[in-house]
């Protein structure tokens, strides 16, 4: 099964894991990645991250990336990325992978994460105690209104 979506609510991790394990056959492990909002960045307290997507294209690109990454060794994959306003410690991205062997599951989970972070049009504004920052790519921070 393949399920990849952009969502605005928290995922019940136990429910997803139980369902994936129940549906599996000869496999014996599940790899999961969970990304969540940091509380501190560069010594400053973060109050929230505001995520926005470009729909319907963000969902289309997310699904295409998942299709391109998985192969016949992947028997079940679920990817969920949240948007909206999220507070520190709240989960953002969930990746669950069951494969025919665990090394493939780890490899594909990591590959999915890296490609999603860099290719799916999702943008975040970090609101913290010293101002608001747009995050560009892998961590470059541009102070809001510094370019206008």
């Amino acid at each position, binding site marked *: 099964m393949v399920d990849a979506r952009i969502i605005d609510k928290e995922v019940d991790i136990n429910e997803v894991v139980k369902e994936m394990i129940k549906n599996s056959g000869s496999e014996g492990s599940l790899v999961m990645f969970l990304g969540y909002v940091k509380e501190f960045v560069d010594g400053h307290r973060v109050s929230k991250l505001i995520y926005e997507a470009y729909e319907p294209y963000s969902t289309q690109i997310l699904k295409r990336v998942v299709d391109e990454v998985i192969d016949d060794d992947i028997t079940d994959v679920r990817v969920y990325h949240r948007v909206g306003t999220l507070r520190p410690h709240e989960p953002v991205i969930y990746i669950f992978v069951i494969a025919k062997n665990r090394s493939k599951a780890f490899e594909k989970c990591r590959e999915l994460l890296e490609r*999603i972070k*860099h290719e799916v*049009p999702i*943008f975040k*504004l970090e609101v913290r105690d010293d101002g608001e920052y*747009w*995050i560009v*790519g892998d961590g470059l921070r541009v102070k809001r209104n510094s*370019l*206008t």
Partner: protein
Amino acid sequence: MEVKVVYLGLIADVTGRKEERVKLDSEIEFSEFLSMLFIKYPKLKELSEKLELIFLVNGVKYRDDERLHDGDEVAIMTVPSGG
């Protein structure tokens, strides 16, 4: 003809709007359209010299020689920051 332009993330701060509709006399190459936008928004041109910008036409990365057609949707963004 008319195309829709969507400004994503910090690009919307630079242009002062999230989207707009642009009327064109005829179909033009994307590069020509981009030059028009850079004249309208000099700060966008400045930004393009500092940061990598990504351009989509109807959700797909544009080609240099691609021509814009009536009803197309152009999106301008920085490198995504998901996760």
